[in-house]
């Protein structure tokens, strides 16, 4: 059976124009193949009728027994950590409530990576836009980091090169400037008219962006023989001539130690430019459901991830409650790892007791105490996911029925027993 308009939750763009052929437990991508989505649906496909069974201490167990054991481990834990959160909204909703019930800390697998955009939003606010707005309104797109094309391969056909547009000719044939540090590996930039590749002499994208802010802010910043400054002055001049400039970045391409400052510089630059022209940001991310998890935490508990519930109230502190650090420092004795989109998103190595609520093809390490294979959102059960722009929420269709439980139901059953 063929399903159309299937949403692919395997990168933050959430493209929803996929067609999938479903034959029993087997899935085949029937629309144009892009590497990320192709792998994800291949990973989701079963050729055998034997489905994975829950396991307790490495041995097959019933779902009920696995749920009871997970609840028992959580109840006995002095400091649980719920992490991963690579799943749909329903799974995240129940994970937050389980964290509250078990007085756990909850954080996303990519907790550190999420903080740059979040911290800048908290401190300064942002100027942002969304995918369709860029597609129809932008006549200039500046992309910081050519690797963005590898990470978001469909940005090109979905946003950058529309065949039709609500705007003028310039919004169809956008000017696209891709900026890299000259020391960075060049990404898969499409060979299309309108794209200019600009490797600039700097140690990092971060350095380029800090200089960009200087160029934007200082009227006195004149051409000075420095190639970097001159090129950025040229780009600033182009921005001032265009109708609607979008600046695209992915904080994963910044130096992790300074990603927050770099995002801040970009934000300040855009806010300065906004005094005269429209210049907006499109941070790309969310490929491991970071946006989804964070939206749920923010609305239901009032604060973004990570959140600690030990004090009976939600406490947000991205340093103290970073999940990765807690595990490394031995500050959590029980880990619940929620990861339902890919068999590759395994729990981190840890001495903590580990409960994995995971993708049905996940091969968990033998040290895992409880493994509960669950359905894949958008394959085995319906669900919802938040797109990279934090605005569009897409439905995930149920396209297969092989009797795998949804993670949300498993989490709720565990919470009821804790």
């Amino acid at each position: 059976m063929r399903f159309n308009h299937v949403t692919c939750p395997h990168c933050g763009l959430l493209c929803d124009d996929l067609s999938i052929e479903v034959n029993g437990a087997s899935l085949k991508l029937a629309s144009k193949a892009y590497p990320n989505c192709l792998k994800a649906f291949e990973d989701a496909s079963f050729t055998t009728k034997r489905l994975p069974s829950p396991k307790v201490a490495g041995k097959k167990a019933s779902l009920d027994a696995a749920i009871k054991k997970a609840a028992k481990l959580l109840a006995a834990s002095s400091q649980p950590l719920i992490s991963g959160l690579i799943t749909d909204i329903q799974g995240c909703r129940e994970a937050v409530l389980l964290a509250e019930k078990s007085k756990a800390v909850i954080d996303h697998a990519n907790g550190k990576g999420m903080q740059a955009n979040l911290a800048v939003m908290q401190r300064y606010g942002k100027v942002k836009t969304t995918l369709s707005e860029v597609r129809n309104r932008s006549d200039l797109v500046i992309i910081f980091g050519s690797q963005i094309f590898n990470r978001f391969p469909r940005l090109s056909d979905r946003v950058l090169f529309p065949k039709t547009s609500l705007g003028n000719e310039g919004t169809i044939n956008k000017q696209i400037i891709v900026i890299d540090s000259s020391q960075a590996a060049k990404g898969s930039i499409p060979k299309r008219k309108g794209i200019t590749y600009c490797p600039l002499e700097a140690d990092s994208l971060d350095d380029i962006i800090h200089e960009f802010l200087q160029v934007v802010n200082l009227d006195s910043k004149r051409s000075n023989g420095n190639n970097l400054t001159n090129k950025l002055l040229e780009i600033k001049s182009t921005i001032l001539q265009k109708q609607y400039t979008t600046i695209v970045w992915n904080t994963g391409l910044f130096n992790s130690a300074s990603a927050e400052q770099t995002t801040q510089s970009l934000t300040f630059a855009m806010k300065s430019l906004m005094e005269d022209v429209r210049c907006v940001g499109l941070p790309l991310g969310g490929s491991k459901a970071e946006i989804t998890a964070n939206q749920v935490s923010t609305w239901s508990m009032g604060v973004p991830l990570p959140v600690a519930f030990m004090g009976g109230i939600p406490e947000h502190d991205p340093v103290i409650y970073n999940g990765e650090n807690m595990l490394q420092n031995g500050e959590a004795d029980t880990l619940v790892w929620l990861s339902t989109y890919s068999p590759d998103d395994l729990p981190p190595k840890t001495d903590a007791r580990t409960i994995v609520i995971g993708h049905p093809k996940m091969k968990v390490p033998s040290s895992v105490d409880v493994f509960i294979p669950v359905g894949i959102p958008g394959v085995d059960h319906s669900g919802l996911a938040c797109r990279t722009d934090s605005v569009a929420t897409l439905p995930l269709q149920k396209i297969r029925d092989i009797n795998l439980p949804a993670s949300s139901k498993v989490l709720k059953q565990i919470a009821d027993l804790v």
Partner: protein
Amino acid sequence: MAIKITGGIVYDPTHQIDGKKLDLYIVNDRILHQLPADEKVKQTYNLKNHIVMAGAIDIHTHIGGGKVNIARTMMLDDQIEYPQPGDDHRHTGCGHAVPSTFTAGYRYAEMGYTACFEPAVLPVNARQAHMEMADTPMVDKGGYVLLGNDDFLLSLMHESASQSTINDYVAWVLHASQCIGIKVVNAGGIHAFKYNQRRLDIDEQSPAGVTPRDIITTLSRAVHELGVPHPLHVHASNLGIAGNFKSTLATMAAAESLPIHLTHIQFHSYGNEGDYNFSSAACEIAEAINTTPNVTADVGQIMFGQTITTSGDTMMQYFGHEHAHPKKWTVMDIECEAGCGVIPFRYRNKSFVNALQWAIGLEIFLQVDDPWRVFLTTDHPNGAPFTTYPHLIKLLMNRSFRNDAFSIIHSDAQKMSNLASMEREYSLYEIAIMTRAAPAKILGLSDHGHLGEGASANITIYKKQDDVEQMFAKPSYVFKNGELVVKDGSIIKTVRGVTHTVKPDFDIEIEKPLKRYFDDYQTISLPNFKISADEMIECIGSEVVTHPCRI
């Protein structure tokens, strides 16, 4: 088994009951006036010295959607300062200006509210708005979906599409977004801002080739012809600008005698006279409402203190960003539909402009004669958090309290306001109108907002007190759908509430041009854009109740 409520003084303006002792029975989730022969009373509430009203309804409160989450993110200090511990009944949470969803539901119920309506649902963000509302317990919810800056409508209008085509689109959006009303924010202005236009007056042609007046006229006619009970809900042009009362009056006229609701009208009632070039035009606005029966308004009262403003009006939010406190702001263009701007504000009684804004809101309340046509709102959280409602009610009901408060605001603002001379004090009956009967009526919720036979058993009971602020802050009992959920101002049981919608008839042929529009321009497909009733229950988590449209 029935619950009997006896001895209380009942205020039920829908049935012209103004402070009369009346026995009520609750059977299942309904109110009855006589005990059916086959029912027995299992519990009796003897309510001597108590006041009985229907559950309150907030017709304009920003409680769900992406902009609220942005506000929560930007208000971390406020979230930390106001924690909500959990207990057997309640989830934990936090926040005062923009509380977390569970906390917002508890706060509303603790004040006797049983329904709240989110006034700015972006179609593309409707799922998230509904999920946030689904996670707001205790109260029923509903949303007004944003139109009037969306490229599809603006293109239809520019191409002189027929009114019936536009009506079909409006109805389709109501279905697709599971909403109960249509909202316009700065008609055409959010769209114009995307073209770097920083102001758009009511008769100015926008980059889309239409005027705000055209948009208001067209959409108010669509809403009327579709029989949608709630009039077009309009955030007028030029919010916050001195002298904007003229465009507000022009916006009223744009409805061409069809029903129109002007929201947070306080922010649109400014003159430009005096030493500060900022003055009250409350008198002109109130007079216009009094003499124009098709117009209703909610006030959007400001209260002094820290809050955050969340609005679809990117154009005017950007204009106001220099007044942010603390100094941070977010502006976002959204999906060829609309936008949002989020800016924290601290209203100060020693600021001339803030003080006069406060006085202007109260002047409007006190000068609009008909309480059925003026609604009690703070445009939560934009004017103030909704938890200030009991204080606002006291300002309306107690002249000496009001004048004491007036006497300490900025002295120049006092000179520019005639508030102190206004003798009117709202009665309990009038408060019941503006917070219960009138909201239910204007939303088409026939079995809400009153205590008549067969009504939903949403009942709030207050112990009579001289201090009405305390009285309205902490009801003795709140029943939601017949269940006792609040006792002495505290939650004793949590319930979910439903989502109220309307589903006007339309010609499905409208999906042909819509499909082309989605295929050619959008980054979501048309089938995935639409939210079904099944999805509302299975994924979003709220049951849908559909109310009839006028035929």
